[in-house]
């Protein structure tokens, strides 16, 4: 990047990449590939006759994810602002489409996938990123008015409500909670009065309570969370198997590939409960590494947010960091029996193409925010940043 001619490099020089953040993301993706294979090989062999079935698919998704990451980094997060509304509209259309009979595929009682020949996408994963981009843009645009109830709070709450309803129709409680959580984080960061936030949380509680009480499976999950061992043969089955799985790992684990829970005992071993298999096979050493890597992403993400040159970058970085951090914490907490089962995947690690590609694209945007800040140490950063900032301001004004 430093070798090109000054004129050329001003135009095409790749942004300076935060090597620590990039390293953490790629490490998680790599670990994910290894663990997806380890946790799915036996079941895939037994049910599909090909132990590599899930690995190949995850490898393909990781390849596409790398492309998405490179594109996001190259395009730059600032230009993404322009697409805030179109992307949100697309996300909403996908969320509606998944509910249309014939388009959405029913898996395990929920319609969460749109299946095309060869690929299936999970609209909720797209929606999370679209939601973060939209909120960041909207909050950056409204800047000082964010503190006003009718401008900064109510409209976002309305859009969020719409998305949450769509998610709940699938039903996908975990994604709905994630969307709400992300909104609160970003409103909090943008300076909404704490009283509004606290007040609305209190207002949501009755709805959440009703949603849990009135849905048998959610209620079962809730009671399983409260006392998994009492419900061991029913709703607590997954959690107790997961606990035994993590617990039996010890310090160094049973060894890669030697876990037993994935042998049909633990359902969804390669998706929602992959963390249990990491705990079992790689022990405390392995899970500590995973926790540390997420910690690194949070650290570098917050750092990028703080250093961003304009509010859009700040909110985007915060939103993406929170999305990754929130899902990671909740997923691991579920595996450890510290939170009720949600259906949230472990970012970058769990099997699932839509999630991996979207998350890697989001990581690209995060890297782009980090690169665009002077703190990243790029000599030409300040100049480019100033120019880009002007462009963004112009965009924002135009909008």
């Amino acid at each position, binding site marked *: 990047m430093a070798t090109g001619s000054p004129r050329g490099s001003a135009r095409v020089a790749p942004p300076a990449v935060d090597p620590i953040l990039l390293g953490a993301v790629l490490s998680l993706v790599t670990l994910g590939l290894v663990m997806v294979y*380890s946790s799915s*090989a*036996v079941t895939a*062999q*037994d*049910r*599909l*006759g*090909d*132990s590599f079935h899930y690995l190949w698919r995850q490898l393909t998704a990781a390849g596409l994810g790398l492309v998405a990451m490179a594109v996001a980094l190259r395009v730059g997060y600032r230009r993404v602002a322009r697409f805030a509304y179109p992307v949100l509209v697309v996300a909403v259309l996908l969320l509606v489409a998944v509910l249309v009979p014939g388009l959405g595929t029913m898996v395990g009682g929920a319609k969460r996938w749109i299946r095309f020949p060869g690929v299936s996408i999970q609209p909720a994963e797209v929606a999370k990123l679209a939601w973060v981009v939209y909120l960041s843009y909207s909050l950056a645009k409204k800047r000082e008015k964010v503190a006003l109830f009718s401008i900064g709070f109510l409209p976002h709450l309305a859009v969020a409500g719409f998305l949450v309803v769509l998610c709940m129709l699938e039903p996908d409680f975990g994604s709905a909670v994630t969307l709400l959580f992300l909104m609160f984080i970003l409103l*909090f*960061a943008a*300076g909404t009065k704490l009283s509004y936030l606290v007040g609305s949380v209190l207002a949501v509680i009755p709805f959440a309570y009703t949603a849990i009480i009135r849905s048998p499976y959610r209620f079962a999950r809730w009671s399983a969370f409260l006392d998994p061992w009492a419900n061991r*043969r029913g709703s607590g*089955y997954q959690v107790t198997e997961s*606990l*035994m*799985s*993590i*617990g*039996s*790992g*010890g*310090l160094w684990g049973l060894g*890669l*590939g*030697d876990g*037993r*829970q*994935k*042998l*049909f*005992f633990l359902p969804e071993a390669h998706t929602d409960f992959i963390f249990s298999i990491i*705990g079992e096979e790689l*022990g*405390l050493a392995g*899970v*500590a590494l995973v*926790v540390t890597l997420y*910690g690194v992403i*949070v650290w570098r993400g*917050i750092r990028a*947010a*703080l250093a961003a*040159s304009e*509010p859009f970058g*700040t909110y985007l970085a*915060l939103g993406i960091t929170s999305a990754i*951090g*929130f899902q*990671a*914490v909740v997923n691991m*907490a579920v595996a*450890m029996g*510290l939170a009720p089962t949600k259906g949230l995947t472990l970012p970058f690690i769990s099997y699932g193409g839509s999630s991996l590609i979207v998350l890697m694209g989001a990581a690209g945007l995060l890297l782009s925010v980090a690169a665009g800040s002077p703190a990243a140490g790029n000599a030409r950063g300040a100049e480019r940043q*100033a120019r880009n900032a002007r462009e*963004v*301001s112009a965009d*924002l*004004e135009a909008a």
Partner: protein
Amino acid sequence: MTLRPTSPGRDLKVRYLYLGGAMLAGLVVLAVNLYRLQIIQGDEYLAKSQENFIKPIRVRADRGMIKDRRGEILADSRPSFDAFVTPAFCQRCVAEVLPRLATYLQWDEVQQARIEAQVKGTRGPARFQPISVRVDLTRDELDVLNAHPDELPGVDLVPVPHRNYRSGAQLAHVLGYMNEVTQDELDSLNSKGGGYALGDYAGRRGIERYFESRLRGQDGLRKEVVNARGESMRDDQGLIGGSDEVPPKPGKNVVLSIDSRLQAEAERVFPGVAGTVVALDVRTGFILAMMSRPSFDPNVLTGRVSAAQMTAMAKDPLQPMMFRSVAMHYSPGSTFKPITMLAALKSGQFNAHSFVNCTGGYRLGSRVWRCWADRGHGIRDSRQALQSSCDTFFYHVGDVLGLDPIAEMGKALGLGSPTGIGVVGEVPGIMPDVAYHDRATPGGYQKGMALNSAIGQGDDNVTPLQLTLAYAAIANGGTLYQPQLVRRIESVDGKVLEEFQPKVTRQIPIAAEHRALVVDALTAVVNEAGGTATRVRLKDILLAGKTGTAQVQRIGAVREKKEDMDYFERDHAWFAAFAPADDPEIAVVVLNEHAGHGGVESAPTAAAVVQKYFDLKKADASASVVPAVRPPPPVEGPPEKPTEKLPAPGDDAKRKLAAGQPPPDPGEVR
């Protein structure tokens, strides 16, 4: 107001730090809990996980049975055990366990080496996959293995129902057999919701394959508490709830139209080393017997078939896996002549009084086409020509008509295209016409080809099933049926789920008097002096039929004796028949490969099958007298004479007679 790039205010920056701090705190809480789970309580959980695995176990559904038309069981499943080794649970496997197994199961060295390599070769998760080391254990093997459970850790004896074909090789081609699904098949089977796993068996060929989805049923699920070594434990803690069990759904029974007694009779009376017998109901197209020889034992193919056995079967020049009734085509020879005759009558250029003077051959251009009777038949009218199978007459028909009218009649009767039987793979055969020869034969169509085709030689090729259907259509007055092997599908408790109705392929417009002439001539073949199959005349049943002796090799200057020829160059012996001639019920075709003369080598088999059919009918009728609500149908008395009368020649008076000759003296029979 303008929005300028501003860094967030101081108070907001604090909020970001709170957020980051909160997330990091969350991670720290998780880390602390992980330490508690894995280090402090780790041993406890390890013990728990080793003591209590709840393992879902597939409960195989019983496969449906295959029965004959009267409900006699042809294929069912018998209890049996397979032996498996799971490397992960098999301690000191190669050093101790496998040598012991080798002794108990009497493995040879090759087998032991192969399994040793398999056990040694598995790594990682594959070590939990059971390896099949012996299917279908004998009673003795089972006793020995059961007596030494402690010596054989990781060895499981799994009850697996084994397919049992009660009549052995007798119906093998129709029933098919079963073997293990390959990896490639798993995907396609499971995409249709089959629920197959590696190691499962699936039907191959015939009924087993065609009705696989209905015979198979749906596996159930049972849960079992096992420890870390895979051993079953008592469910002390009530871990398994009864509600989690899914009972298996048994497969459905397939009831064939085959009568196993008639099938056995065909098997018993057929004299040849290779050939086929097909019998079907001319009124419905349902197949009553379909024998193909040589055959194979599906019990062997379904079980422990060795590589040597497979090679021997593949190398056998008689091809035992080949279903001769449908999957091979042959020159029909003289059995084709009734079809030529129908074409001749339909053309209007021949009638009952057309005649030819056979001098032992027919000259066309510079070549002479030889009649099988070297010295000639003398004067032969249509009926006599068919009765004595005079080639010269039919050469003449071929000469006058050309190929296409003959091919048209053959095609109308189903020759040259698949019958649509469905269950088993079939070839279409060939019914050549002018266009076919222009396309396929170097030099294109020549007039001589019509002469060859007229006597069922040349490029005429039929499957025995096609020929049976064509004869059935002649017998029933022109209805060509789609042949069927299956009468109905039943549930396990015998409830009829699906009943198959006769399917008509097409109605063929055959004039009643034309059919009458042909039926009369075919009756004379068996029942009147001068016929080619008078030796098989039946006492009580009016049998109609046609012999055929199909050349495999072009006849040289001198006709060789059968015994002097190489086996694969000898003629095929055919007999195609139906009975009773005045009210046909059953059509039978017998093909005895490379056996020589049809009247000698095939006709007796057909006659015996027909005889058996009517014997069984009589026996069944009298047996059902006692429980039957309605009186049994009257047994048909033996008809002495064909009721069909020859058509009056008056209609033909205006028509041009062949070669413009006067009608022959009808009384002239040698």
